[in-house]
């Protein structure tokens, strides 16, 4: 029985880049979001996410538990330096499905038809952004995709990164006018790291496999989270929100076309 391997994977799930890091980044980002979007006071900001998690646990612990485990599973797939999981074991699709499942757990918990429709559209666009580079590169390993520097694939990578970033505010429920329902909010606390970290893993070159690299990765992840928050604020404050989903869909369509073209060119050259 490979106890060592099991132990390492348990560490990855619980500590790094698992639940502990997820909560740390989540509480930080959620606090920032509550200041920027929900206009909560700076003092109350750090406690808002904790309260949301506690309420969530009290109201319906099974979905929150499921969400936490799925978020941890998604986090283990990130190209974070010093990840106990070997690069060969990581899979972008595992992370994507785990995140999507966690999000739908939250949405199912406090269901609102408009919110669900918007979430579906934006998740579809987000998936396009995630998988288009993978389809062209024929790999689902995050670190490999992050390291892609083939000139023919760079436009697609850039466009996908842009789409990914554009989708984040809606996926994180930062665009909605009212504060998201408890279920969604509680799960959102858990998804900051997996969502933003996945973007960093896929669209930025992999960091060195040491402490500095880890800090750089976490900083980049928080940076992406702050950009998402800023974008969310911008969308909330302006009229862009009314056409936001349409814009995302058009951009996703464009990414798909570019992906098809790039794939055709790549295979023709090969």
């Amino acid at each position: 029985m490979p106890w060592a391997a099991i132990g390492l994977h348990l560490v990855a799930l619980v500590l790094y880049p698992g639940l502990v890091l997820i909560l740390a980044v989540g509480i930080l980002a959620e606090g920032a979001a509550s200041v920027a979007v929900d206009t909560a006071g700076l003092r109350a900001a750090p406690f808002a996410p904790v309260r949301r998690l506690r309420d969530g646990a009290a109201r319906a612990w099974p979905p929150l538990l499921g969400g936490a485990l799925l978020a941890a599973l998604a986090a283990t797939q990130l190209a974070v330096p010093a990840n106990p999981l070997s690069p060969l074991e990581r899979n972008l699709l595992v992370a994507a499905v785990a995140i999507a499942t966690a999000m739908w757990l939250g949405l199912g918990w406090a269901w609102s038809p408009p919110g669900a429709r918007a979430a579906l559209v934006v998740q579809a666009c987000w998936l396009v952004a995630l998988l288009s580079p993978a389809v062209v590169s024929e790999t689902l390993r995050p670190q490999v995709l992050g390291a892609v520097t083939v000139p023919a694939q760079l436009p697609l990578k850039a466009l996908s990164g842009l789409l990914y970033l554009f989708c984040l505010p809606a996926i994180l429920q930062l665009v909605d006018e009212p504060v998201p329902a408890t279920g969604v909010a509680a799960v959102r606390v858990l998804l900051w790291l997996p969502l933003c970290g996945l973007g960093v893993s896929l669209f930025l070159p992999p960091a060195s496999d040491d402490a500095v690299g880890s800090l750089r990765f976490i900083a980049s992840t928080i940076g992406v989270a702050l950009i998402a928050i800023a974008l969310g604020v911008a969308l909330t404050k302006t009229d862009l929100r009314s056409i936001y989903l349409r814009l995302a869909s058009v951009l996703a369509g464009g990414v798909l076309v570019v992906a098809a073209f790039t794939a055709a060119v790549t295979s023709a050259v090969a």
Partner: protein
Amino acid sequence: MALATLLLPAAVLAVSAALSWGADAVGLAVGRYIVAAAAWLSLAVLAAVWLAGGRGLVEFTPGITTAVAPLRLRMDAVVVLFQVAVLVPAALLLTFQSRSSREAAIAGLAAAAALLCLEGGSLLWTAIGLGVCMSLVLIDLHREEQRGSVPFWGVQTIAWLLLVWTAVLLEAAGGTSVFGAIPVTALRLPAFAVLAAAAVLCAGVLPVRTWVSEAWTRRRLEAGTLAIALLVPIGFYLLVRAYGMGAGQWPASQANLVVAAIGSTAAVGAAVRAQAATTRRGFLAEAVPLGSGVALLAVGLGTPLGLVAALMGVLSVSIVAGLAPLVPSDRGPVALLAIAVPAGAPPTVVFGSLLLSVQAALEAGVVQAFLGLAVVAAWLLGLAAAARAVRLRDASADTGLNGSRVGSLVTAVVAVAAGVGLTLVVALLAIPAAAEVMPPTPVQGQGAGGVSPSAILGAGSLGVSTASGGWSSALLAGPIVLLALVAVAAAPLLRWHAARTSVAEAPLAPAIVELEPPPAPLFTPPLAPVPARAAGWLKAFRLPAQYRSLFRPALMEAAVARSKPWLWVAVTVVLTIAVTR
């Protein structure tokens, strides 16, 4: 020994059916339990004889010619996998669904026929087995409820006749339809097209709503869901065998692409219908089509990994077929878990098979990769539909059929356990079966080189690791399940703490808020009204009055039979002129 290996699993079920019938005759209501026990015993016997027999090919040819073909039975890794795929859901349904002794007897016989169908040593014998199985399932369906059984019969008869014709085409081209002896060149594109049509009709994997979903519109689910459990795997079996006939490949790469495209569109169609379901039963009705669509995409890829993914897909579809009818109508944790499994939530076996299928599609080529992308979209939509389905009213609640909490828990646990032990299932069942039909001898084109475990399984076989990605099923899914169990055990403490720290707050609302009316669909299926409109148009279609008499056989018969037979003379004269000109 060979005969025992081949016939024991089916014999156990047949004997139990006879016992159940006898119990019914003497008024003992124990038939259901006898057949259920026999189904599990049959599964155990299958495993025992397979392992005891060294997991090699076993053929039985007694030299008897019955039904115009020499009797020939065969058991190999493919047969075993598909027999498991038939027996697991059959055993679950026979155990946890309520049946009268007579219904249980017919169901047991149908399951035995399905096993024998899979053991047919030639395509002709498979067709004969399918005919018998189909007939028994029809008897079961019709006995339970007449509505809907005739369309089912129609579709299955078309599939059966097409299969018979395929056997005929193979015998015409290669002189035999015996699996082990069909010349590689015998399976040409026309014959394969007929076979594929038979397979997709039998398995009900089409972009439109098929008999598989329709079976869920019946008042009682017992017969319909058993039909799904027995016949859907047989449809896939035909496509997998086709690889064996062509030494690891289908007659043309276009055929692979078309089948894969049908699979992905079928998956998308099922997901679209699932998210628009008005009842929980409507959602569950699309669970098998969704999984079948993905499995069809994988089987159409024509690569070793694709085939392994397809075989895993068949196994996961069989678990879903056994689970979906047992989902309880409430909104408790068991129901949540049971609804999450068919949607492909990690870390179940359904998730593992979907993951393998998408990876296989990604590695198969550009077009296949985009088809894989469509399947991921269907997967996402399925997850959304599952989240919505939790809040849907369960139609079966009206009829007093509330599934089985124990049954769905057991099945969900099996699904999760198989997900954790994914590599074990892949190594023990899927890879040997794929290697059986995709021989390692290098052949040109797809499938070259055959199936290699090292290309699919990671180090120590603790995870799946292919060229495009990996999944540590044992090392990640195991600890996740462990953590979940720990958390579930600690839940009361957590709840107590939460309650203590939020005393100042208003009393908490119930865990899940009742929503009336049920949630609206995420979007209206684009082509939903088309079939109904077409059916309405066909119903309303009338010939112009002046032409109707031409198409009324009764009038023409009256003219021919009742009048003085001048028409006879006239027809004779006309025919004479026709042949003498």
